[in-house]
C-alpha cells in the first residue's frame, strides 16, 4: 500500500518538476483553462439556480389556466365559460382572474395591474410593488394618477407597498379592486381576463385540459407543468446563448489545449525513451502523463469552480446576470438562492478534467511503447 502511494507521489513529484520547466507557458495554460471553467461554471450555476427557483416558487401557480383566443390573440373570456367548465367531472372550482398592463408614460414603464379578492382593497386604493414604489417614489398614503380607457383621470391612494422580499415576482404589480379594474379598463361585468381551474385529482389535469379544449375550441388551456417547463427552457436557452457567445473563445482554447496536451514534441519523445531506458515501465510513463494532465486540469477545475461560486452567489454574477435574467426598467432587486448539487459539479468535472487528461495520455501511449534501445543510439 505505502509502496503504491510512494510511487505515485514520486511520479507526481517528477510531473510537477517537468511542468515547472515551462513555467510561463503552463501557468498561462492553467490561467486560461481556469477562465474557461469559470465561465462555464458561472453560467451553469446561474441557470440552475434560476431554474430551481422557478420550479420551486411556481409550484404554487394555478394548476390550470384557461384563456380565450380570438383570431389568434388572447381575449377577454366570458364568465359563461366558467359555468361550462365547472360541469366537467373532476373540476372543483373555476375562478375568473382580472389582470392587465398599464403603460406609465411618466417613467416609461409597464405595470401589471391585478385584482386579488383576498386582498380586499377598498375602492380608489391600490397596493404597489416595491419596484414601482422605487421609480415613482410612492409611499403609504401617497397618490397615483391613472388615465382610464376613456381618457378620464383616476386618482388612487397607495394603501401599501408589497414586500421587498418577493420582488422577483411582484416588483411591477399594482393590486386594486375589481370595480376599479373594470372602470379603468372598461372590462364588462360578465368578462374576466382568464379563468383558473382547480382539479380534484392532479393526474387528471391534462385530461380536463383536453376536455376544455374539445368543449370550448376557442380556448387555450395552460398547465402549471408547462409554465415551469417554459421557464426551464427559457433559462436553458439564455445559458445556451451565453455559451454560444463564448463558443469562439472556447474553441480557441480547445485547439490551444489540444495542441499543448496532444502534440508530443521530439524532445518529449526523447525523454520518454530515456525514462524507459532507465527502467520505467510503459505504465509508469503513462502514469506520469496522467499526473501532468491531471495537475493542470484539476487545478483549473477547482479554481474555476470556486471563482464561479463566488461570482454567482456571493457577488451576484455581475458578468452574466443581464443576459441570463433579462433586462427591464422595473428591474427587481433580488438575490439568487444558491442551489448547488454534486451532480452539477460532477458534470463540470467530467467535461473539463477528463478530456484534457485523456488528451495528455493518449499521444504518449505510442511513444511509451517504443523499444528503449532507441535511446542508445541518439
Amino acid at each position, binding site marked *: 500500500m505505502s509502496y503504491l502511494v510512494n510511487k505515485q507521489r514520486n511520479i507526481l*513529484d517528477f510531473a510537477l518538476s517537468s511542468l515547472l520547466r515551462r513555467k510561463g507557458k503552463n501557468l498561462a495554460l492553467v490561467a486560461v483553462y481556469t477562465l474557461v471553467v469559470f465561465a462555464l461554471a458561472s453560467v451553469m450555476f446561474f441557470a440552475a439556480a434560476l431554474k430551481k427557483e422557478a420550479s420551486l416558487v411556481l409550484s404554487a401557480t394555478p394548476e390550470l389556466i384557461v384563456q380565450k383566443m380570438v383570431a389568434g390573440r388572447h381575449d377577454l373570456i366570458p364568465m359563461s365559460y366558467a359555468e361550462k367548465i365547472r360541469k366537467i367531472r373532476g373540476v372543483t372550482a373555476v375562478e375568473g382572474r382580472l389582470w392587465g*398592463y398599464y403603460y406609465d408614460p411618466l417613467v416609461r414603464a409597464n405595470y401589471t395591474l391585478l385584482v386579488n379578492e383576498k386582498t380586499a382593497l377598498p375602492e380608489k386604493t391600490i397596493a404597489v410593488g416595491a419596484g414601482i414604489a422605487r421609480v415613482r417614489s410612492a409611499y403609504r398614503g401617497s397618490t397615483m394618477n391613472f388615465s382610464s380607457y376613456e381618457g378620464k383621470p383616476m386618482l388612487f391612494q397607495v394603501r401599501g407597498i408589497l414586500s421587498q422580499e418577493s420582488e422577483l*415576482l411582484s416588483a411591477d404589480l399594482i393590486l386594486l379592486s375589481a370595480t376599479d379594474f373594470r372602470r379603468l379598463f372598461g372590462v364588462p361585468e360578465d368578462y374576466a381576463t382568464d379563468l*383558473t381551474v382547480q382539479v380534484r385529482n392532479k393526474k387528471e389535469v391534462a385530461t380536463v385540459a383536453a376536455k376544455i*379544449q374539445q368543449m370550448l375550441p376557442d380556448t387555450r388551456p395552460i398547465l402549471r407543468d408547462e409554465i415551469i417547463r417554459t421557464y426551464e427552457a427559457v433559462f436553458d*436557452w439564455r445559458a445556451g446563448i451565453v455559451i454560444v457567445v463564448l463558443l469562439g473563445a472556447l474553441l480557441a482554447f480547445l485547439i490551444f489545449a489540444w495542441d499543448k496536451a496532444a502534440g508530443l514534441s521530439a524532445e518529449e519523445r526523447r525523454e520518454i525513451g530515456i525514462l524507459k531506458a532507465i527502467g520505467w515501465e510503459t505504465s509508469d510513463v503513462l502514469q506520469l502523463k496522467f499526473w501532468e494532465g491531471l495537475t493542470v486540469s484539476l*487545478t483549473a477545475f477547482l479554481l474555476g*469552480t470556486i471563482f464561479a461560486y463566488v461570482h454567482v452567489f456571493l457577488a451576484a454574477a455581475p458578468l452574466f446576470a443581464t443576459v441570463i*435574467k433579462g433586462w427591464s426598467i422595473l428591474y427587481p432587486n433580488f438575490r439568487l438562492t444558491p442551489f*448547488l448539487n454534486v451532480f452539477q459539479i460532477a458534470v463540470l468535472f467530467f467535461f473539463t478534467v477528463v478530456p484534457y487528461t485523456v488528451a495528455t495520455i493518449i499521444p504518449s501511449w505510442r511513444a511509451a511503447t517504443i523499444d528503449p534501445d532507441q535511446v542508445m543510439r541518439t
Partner: protein
Amino acid sequence: MRKSSIFISFILGCTLTLGLAFLDALFQKAGDLPLLRQEIKVVETLQLTDFCLATEARHTRHPSQSDWHSPFQSHPGALDHFPSGAIIQPPERIIKGHELPR
C-alpha cells in the same frame, strides 16, 4: 518541502474551499427558506404565473401567458428569445396543444 506535498496541500485546500462553498450554499438556502416560503405564498394568494424579470412587453413579462403570435416570434409557441426562436423549433408538445387521447 516536496513539490508533491505543496501540490497536494494546494489541491486539498481548494477541495476544502469547494466544500465550504457547498456549506455556504446550504446556509444561504436555509437562510432563504422563509423568503422562498413567502414567495410561494405570494404566488399562491395572487395566483401569479410568472417572474417579474422583463416588464417591457407582455411576451416577456408573462412568457407563459402570452399569445401564440407575438412580435418576432417565428412560430406560435416558439421560444421568444432572439436568436433561439428563429433557429430552434418549439417542443412538439407545445405545437400539438391539448388533445384527448384517442
